[in-house]
């Protein structure tokens, strides 16, 4: 893997070293160390630390307002676009601190893709949407375009539905299809890691299932960070989870580990029960 830092900086990625001083064979692909985020002086995330192993689906669970989306946007530096956001701490991606100011954030976002809560497709055709990023970032030859579109749509479980409508406007698709199209657009860039910010919260049961299948299918090949407030979903698709709570207005990690350990933690269980109560109330 080439370093993300600009050529000029001559980035020399340091190796992750285990506490004992021996090189760790199962080095985490992503490690957050005491990451705090403030916006206009107000704390949003407080000293968040977590490790994500390569090829796993890592869930982030917590009530709304706990800074889960901000956490994801910090990892691909999309917070840079928001005025007055300050990030402290270290985020090591394959051993490189991506919060360093010399990191090429555009190159970083090619390697760490993202899918948002609300799908936002561009007002062009379905095929053009899939190619939107990849043809500018990696340069796709005209002869290869059809192949790239097919591969991405197949991976997003959309090929069967859309293969005859590739030239139609993407704005005519259903929300569920739009969300999977956004996923295909991100997958076309072949990212090593995918950040998913409550990707199914705006979708019906059928589209939700399709996206969950897709996440399970990506396991091993890509690392996935999935933010969700749906406990059942977390149980179904994630390998490990972190439970985020709100303390003094800022998000903090309450517990992280495998699903059973987190669901077994009494403090987490109380938090989840409260979240479920709130959701039940919202449904009524």
């Amino acid at each position: 893997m080439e370093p993300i830092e600009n050529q000029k900086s001559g980035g020399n990625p340091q190796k992750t070293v285990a506490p004992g001083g021996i090189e760790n064979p199962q080095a985490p692909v992503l490690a957050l160390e005491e990451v705090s985020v403030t916006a206009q002086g107000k704390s949003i995330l407080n000293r968040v630390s977590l490790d994500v192993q390569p090829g796993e689906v890592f869930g982030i669970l917590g009530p709304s307002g706990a800074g889960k989306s901000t956490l994801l946007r910090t990892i691909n530096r999309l917070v840079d676009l928001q005025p007055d956001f300050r990030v402290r701490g270290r985020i090591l991606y394959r051993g490189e601190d991506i919060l360093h100011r010399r990191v090429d954030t555009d190159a970083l976002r090619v390697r760490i893709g993202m899918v948002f809560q609300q799908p936002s497709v561009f007002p062009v055709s379905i095929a053009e949407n899939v190619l939107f990023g990849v043809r500018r970032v990696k340069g796709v030859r005209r002869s290869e375009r059809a192949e790239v579109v097919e591969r991405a749509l197949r991976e997003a479980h959309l090929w069967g539905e859309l293969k005859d409508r590739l030239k139609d406007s993407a704005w005519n698709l259903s929300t569920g299809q739009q969300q999977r199209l956004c996923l295909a657009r991100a997958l076309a860039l072949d990212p090593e890691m995918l950040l998913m910010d409550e990707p199914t919260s705006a979708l019906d049961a059928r589209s939700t299932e399709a996206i969950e299948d897709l996440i399970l299918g990506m396991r091993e090949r890509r690392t996935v960070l999935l933010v969700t407030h749906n406990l059942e979903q977390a149980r179904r698709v994630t390998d490990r989870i972190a439970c985020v709570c709100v303390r003094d207005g800022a998000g903090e990690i309450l517990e992280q580990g495998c699903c059973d350990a987190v669901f077994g933690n009494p403090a987490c269980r109380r938090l989840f029960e409260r979240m479920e109560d709130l959701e039940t109330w919202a449904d009524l």
Partner: protein
Amino acid sequence: MTRALAIEKERPSLAGTWSFTHDPWTTLVWGSLILSGGLFLFAGATLVWQSLPIWRHEGWGFLFGGEWFYRHELFGAGAMLYGSVAVAAIAVLLAVPLGVLAAVFLSEYLPRRLRWGMKVLVEALASVPSVVYGLFGVLVLREWVGGAVEPFGGWTGDTLLTAGLLLAVMALPLTVTLSDDALRGVAQEQRVAVRGLGLTRGETVLLVVLPQAWPAVVGATLLGLGRALGETIAVFLVVGRMDNQLPEKWFSLEMIFQPGQTLTSKLGGPETHLAAGDPLHWGAMMGLCLMLVAITVSCLGGARYLQGKGRGRA
């Protein structure tokens, strides 16, 4: 049966209770609508009616005829139409690219706080009275253009070019602020989605923001064009006000460097007073009025249509 009929009679009727006094608020808003619509129709009808003599005298030739000698009862609006179009075209060609680029900078690159300050400043510039811009034109532009047009056979700084440049300066603030509004109208999620794919800020502007804001930007341009075509006093001060300056070929640029006349500078000048006693001459002036209104109203209509289309898409 009789009992049911009795109840029927007691029930108040639901139909036909509206009257002017029953609901004064509705009467007021309807009245205002009818009054303002009526005023517009009245003004339009007056222009048509007052200009009837010239249409009878010159026919359609009035629109493009190149000769205006009122003592010889020759009335052709061609040179003024040419002047208006040329001046407005110069203004739009200069103000739009500059204004749109400035708006992109304002909307996409400037930090939020600075952007707010700049926006207030630009809107303040848009509110400066046109006579002030006109005097600025007399003071600065005329001198400058006078020197610049000499090699092209010009002999004075009062030219169509001067008026066009001045109008560009005047149209710039409005173009900037309206284009900025159009760009801000594009959903922020779209920008974030593009950046999330690893594209740069420049690519985001070129591939997503500008294409989506484009109808509204063109609408803003048309609004500016309508203003430029209707602007009187500033043009009056620097255009030279020379009649019958119609180029031999429609697209030749020679007349740009010469004094000329626009529809507005003619109407704002002393000839309107002179014409008042003579139905034919007065009719010719009203005919110019009618042309001006038709052009500016269609610009405004087009602008509103495109701006609405832009909002619908974003």
